[in-house]
């Protein structure tokens, strides 16, 4: 046997320093994914240490093992069903009483070996707290070690102890350390007795723990029992549990689960008396003083807005430089390949399909890196929860949580990182809601479209028109938020009860790990799907290759060249330069006409004309329709496709403006098209992100359908309402 594998799970409250310890143990050898079926992040790391293969699992940060939030269910199921060799509970020593609530529950499971790490013992010490860890260990019959996670102290000893526990034959003590009052204990005994004959049943948990859960009316455990036991004994057990609950309810005039929570805290109060002493030391509470400023009634919001502005600037302004470099690199690569490879379909696929497609995604990498660095900074310092604290009142009006503000704001830059930022929301409903409405925040890629359309048709009022477009987006987001809250994602709001952790100096290492995790995920998972998507779009715009051109372009080009060659020969020396540019212009013009025809006759063009009746009622012609379809790849493409179809060069140029006016577009239809661009299906990168972050194809398709439907209806109202009112 080369190496024995030992699985160690880290449990603990949010902000207990659990992730810091995890990062210290595993470094960059982490695998970040999702727990099966849910969007709760699962972190796993493998290392070799002390001659063992250690598999470390970072469980979600939780306060309790009651099956209320997904995080709690995930953590509990893991401990119960996967049976890690050791569970290390990271206890925030400066927050002992509350931390012990989870700790006692872990102890109650009575299944795996539990080990307590009294973390941040330095902070506790600085506050004048003294904790008798030997006594704590004795009282709960669990080994207790002191650690200082952010200084990496005591972590090696912790691992050593965990290995020792995993290797020892000693099973966890059967002695019951957590005790309730007599009424409850006797109710537990009654249920344990009923469970006794079924101890060997498959999938049954420890009987005392099961009994406690039955008294708490824990649906997950009930369902488990139903599956594990024969029908009759289960019915008897269920009935007995119900009648015991009834009795307790009458005795305490309170739900039994509440009584048990109360009693656990009573039990903890007893422990606290024995192990915890505090020498009141009057010292300045730095964190509290900082918070008095950062959430101050008058300066709190201005400071908050400044931080957000700075984040936005960093992400999109600073990020623009490396973006340009990547852009240039991609362009350089395609030019290089363009020269090196012989003309062929494969070359076209490589350059215009694959490189262009993947290139359009990889340019987001700097944005993503910077944004996630900023978000990690907000989270690790503790400022993120203050953002939620400040913004909750406003966001709550839309049925959202205070933390939804950041993703929605980022949406103005780019929806991809914005939707990924929704991960900071703990409740799945809040997260979904945020993901669904974020695409209505008009992303920066849509701006070129507005600039061309508004600039052409609204002249000096273009700025105001674009501003209105942005407002419409926000309004639609608000209305949609309220709509979803009362229909699809109904249910009580997740309680806002949220800890405001003390401000801490972040560790660079964990910031970088955080940033890299997210970015890696973006690159790996997006790459594949976007690659396929771009190839499909490319194929649609290139095939079929056989159709009748309205004229013989190669011949016409040859004639053109011949004419100019003749002219050049006849011309005097002064005229040569003029002739040369003229010749180039004519040649480009002809090539553009040819490309316009090719695009118009491609599958994309055919689809565009087939669905032209769909766009007609909202004042968009088939060229607009095709551009909008192409915009699924990236919104910038809407403008360039319009350019191609109108056979003009360079987006935003005067030529395109004139062509648009000539094509019969009016200010009203331009406005209608802008509304459509604002609201319709997000780009492929965003769609893929929605799929990934909602963990479901259903929500992805819902988002596609909803946004496009809303876009059409809104454009319809704008276009036809405008016409009725006499606009054109």
């Amino acid at each position, binding site marked *: 046997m080369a190496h024995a594998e030992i699985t160690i799970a880290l449990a603990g409250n949010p902000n207990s320093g659990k992730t810091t310890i995890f990062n210290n143990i595993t470094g960059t050898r982490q695998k970040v994914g999702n727990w099966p079926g849910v969007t709760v992040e699962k972190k796993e790391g493998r290392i070799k240490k002390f001659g063992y293969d250690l598999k470390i699992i970072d469980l979600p940060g939780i*306060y*309790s093992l*009651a099956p*209320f939030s997904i995080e709690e269910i995930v953590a509990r199921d893991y401990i119960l069903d996967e049976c890690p060799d050791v569970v290390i509970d990271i206890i925030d020593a*400066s*927050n002992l*009483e*509350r931390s012990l*609530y989870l700790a006692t529950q872990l102890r109650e499971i009575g299944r795996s070996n539990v080990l307590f790490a009294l973390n941040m013992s330095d902070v506790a010490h600085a506050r004048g707290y003294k904790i008798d860890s030997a006594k704590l260990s004795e009282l709960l019959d669990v080994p207790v070690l002191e650690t200082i996670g952010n200084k990496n102290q005591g972590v090696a000893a912790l691992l050593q102890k965990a290995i020792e526990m995993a290797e020892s034959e000693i099973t966890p003590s059967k002695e019951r350390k957590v005790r309730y009052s007599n009424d409850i204990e006797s109710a537990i005994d009654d249920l344990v007795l009923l469970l006794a004959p079924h101890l060997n049943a498959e999938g049954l948990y420890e009987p005392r723990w099961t009994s406690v859960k039955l008294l708490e009316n824990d649906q997950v455990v009930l369902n488990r029992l139903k599956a594990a036991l024969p029908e009759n004994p289960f019915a008897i057990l269920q009935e007995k549990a119900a009648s015991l609950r009834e009795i307790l309810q009458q005795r305490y*005039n309170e739900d039994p*689960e*509440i009584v048990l*929570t*109360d009693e656990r*805290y009573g039990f903890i109060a007893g422990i606290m008396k024995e192990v915890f002493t505090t020498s009141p030391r009057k010292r300045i509470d730095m964190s*509290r003083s900082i*918070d*008095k400023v950062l*959430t*101050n*009634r*008058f300066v*709190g*919001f201005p400071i908050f807005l400044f931080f957000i502005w700075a984040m936005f600037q960093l992400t999109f302004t600073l990020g623009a430089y490396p973006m340009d470099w990547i852009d240039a690199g991609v362009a350089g690569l395609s030019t290089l390949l363009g020269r090196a490879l012989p003309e062929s379909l494969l070359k076209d696929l490589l350059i215009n399909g694959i490189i262009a497609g993947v290139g359009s995604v990889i340019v987001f990498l700097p944005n993503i890196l910077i944004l996630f660095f900023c978000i990690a900074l907000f989270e690790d310092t503790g400022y993120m*929860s203050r953002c*939620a*604290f*400040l913004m*909750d*009142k*406003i966001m*709550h009006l839309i049925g959202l949580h*205070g933390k939804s503000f950041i993703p929605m704001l980022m949406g103005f830059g780019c929806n991809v990182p914005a939707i990924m930022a929704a991960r900071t929301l703990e409740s799945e409903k809040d997260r979904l809601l945020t993901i669904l409405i974020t695409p209505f925040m008009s992303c920066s890629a849509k701006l070129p479209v507005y600039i061309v359309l508004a600039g052409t048709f609204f002249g000096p009022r273009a700025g105001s028109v674009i501003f209105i477009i942005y407002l419409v987006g926000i309004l639609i987001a608000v209305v949609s938020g309220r709509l979803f809250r009362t229909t699809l994602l109904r249910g*009580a709001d*997740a*309680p*806002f*009860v*949220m*800890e*405001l*952790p*003390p401000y801490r100096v972040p560790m660079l290492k964990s910031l970088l790990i955080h940033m890299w995790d997210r970015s890696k995920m973006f690159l790996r998972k997006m790459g594949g799907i976007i690659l396929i998507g771009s190839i499909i779009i490319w194929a649609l715009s290139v095939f079929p290759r056989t159709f009748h051109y309205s004229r013989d372009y190669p011949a016409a080009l040859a004639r053109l060249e011949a004419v100019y060659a003749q002219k050049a020969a006849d011309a005097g020396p002064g005229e040569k330069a003029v002739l040369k540019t003229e010749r180039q212009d004519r040649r480009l013009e002809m090539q553009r006409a040819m490309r316009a025809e090719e695009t118009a006759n491609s599958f994309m063009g055919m689809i565009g004309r087939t669905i032209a009746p769909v766009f007609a009622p909202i004042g968009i012609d088939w060229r607009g329709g095709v551009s909008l379809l192409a915009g699924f790849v990236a919104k910038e493409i809407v403008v360039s496709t319009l350019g191609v179809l109108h056979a003009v060069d360079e987006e935003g140029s005067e030529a395109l403006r004139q062509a648009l006016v000539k094509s019969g577009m009016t200010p009203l239809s331009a406005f209608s098209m802008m509304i459509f661009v604002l609201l319709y299906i997000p780009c492929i990168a965003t769609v893929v992100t929605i799929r990934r972050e909602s963990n479901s194809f259903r929500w992805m398709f819902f988002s596609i359908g909803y946004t496009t439907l809303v876009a059409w209806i809104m454009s319809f109202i704008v276009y036809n309402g405008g016409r009725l009112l006499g606009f054109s």
Partner: protein
Amino acid sequence: MNHRDINATRLSKVVEGQRARIVAVGGSGALRRRILEMGMTKGTELLVEKYAPLRDPMEIIVKGFHISLRVEEASEITVEIVE
């Protein structure tokens, strides 16, 4: 249990900087459970640290740590003023 003591009031009515002791936690389901699990059980003392700039949510200190909760949620908690 008589919540209509002269001293009893809703947590949402307690002003900044005032101490209070929890008399009862009302409400239902997840909210109530969460409040209790965070250690805000009957008899626990707390301090109202501040209200957010828009007067909602509020921040309280209980058992040495800071919790924010919405005013609406705080109104489910009956407290008596300490002092």
